[in-house]
């Protein structure tokens, strides 16, 4: 009886852990799913990114965003997670491009807005 209870408890724990991991992994990997291909017409955009825990980590965000043609500069506030992206005049950067860059950088995009 005691052994069965222990086995049941272990099984529930493992299943709960697996469900937790699956849920969290899904959240991270679909962060850019809501951002479309519409071109940003404003000179800047602001992203909110989570998980940038150190300066060297954060540079991955910088590097991925600067790889987008039409991005002029990236200003990053690690404390708030705000990443301000400035575009060159006439650039045709889309929401989806920015979202994909954050996805590639290995962090989680939680917000994207334009002024």
């Amino acid at each position, binding site marked *: 009886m005691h052994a069965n209870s222990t086995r049941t408890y272990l099984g529930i724990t493992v299943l709960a852990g697996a469900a937790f*991991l699956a849920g969290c992994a899904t959240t991270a990997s679909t962060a850019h799913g809501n951002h479309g291909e519409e071109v940003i017409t404003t000179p800047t955009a602001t992203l909110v990114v989570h998980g940038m825990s150190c300066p060297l980590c954060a540079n991955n965000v910088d590097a991925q965003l600067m790889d987008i043609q039409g991005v002029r500069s990236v200003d990053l506030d690690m*404390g708030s997670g705000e990443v301000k992206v400035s575009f060159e005049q006439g650039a045709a950067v889309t929401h989806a491009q920015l979202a994909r860059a954050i996805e590639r950088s290995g962090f989680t995009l939680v917000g994207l807005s334009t002024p």
Partner: protein
Amino acid sequence: MRRKTALVLLAASAAASAQEATNTPAATQPSQGKWTLREKFQYVRSGAQPDGAVAGTEKVLANTIVSYGLAREWSLTLDWTALAAFDDRDAGGSDREYGLYDPAVSLKWRPFQWDLGPVDSVRLAFIGGLELPLGTGEFSSHSWDPFAGAVFTAILGRHGFNAATQYKFNTGSGAAIGRAGDTGDDALRYDLAYLFRLSPSAYTADTTAATYLTFEVNGLYETGGDHEVIVGPGLLYEARRFALEATLGLPLIRDVDHRQRTNLVLTAGVRFLF
């Protein structure tokens, strides 16, 4: 075959990335299409050989780790170590040798990532790889040795915690080359690291660098019965494109009968992100 010791407590698969203590892997990696280069220089002082032929050994090692981000969750790492060894002979005199340890190639897969806030993150990664018999002379095990492990990282505010374990199957006949964990027995590494961000106390828009105090526990158990644990503090300075690190390692457990015991490990290193 002489037995020499160099407790190189760098997991062969450690990716050169951020928020990672010197000798303990972290579940971090370069982003997709980006490279990191990490160079670690170690001074290792070991005690006498079990057969008494050598009173002590000093080694200087240069460990190079190159990692490439294959995808958001995947990275590839190549890791190799060059060394110079200086033995003090009991009978008098000394020996000097130079060589390369077997390099290792590995894949890191990070299936779980939970970014709780701007700074906070919890991650889990798995590592699998192969040690290639490309080292020089007696510094090579002359066998293809696979390894696998897991790394857990939690970063909460100014506090960072890494826990890693890795098991290596030594498929060779047991030709010892003096590299701890590569003496013919299978080897289990277990590493713990705590990082405290000394400065800045809080990140702002002006933050371009951070300094961490680290403390590591690096254990190595070999199926032949040898068990050694090195502990020690360190400092890590991270800027946006590079990092500098230095650690001191002292033995906490030295239950070692088949090779030399480690007395001291000093490490200094630099990392670059491209």
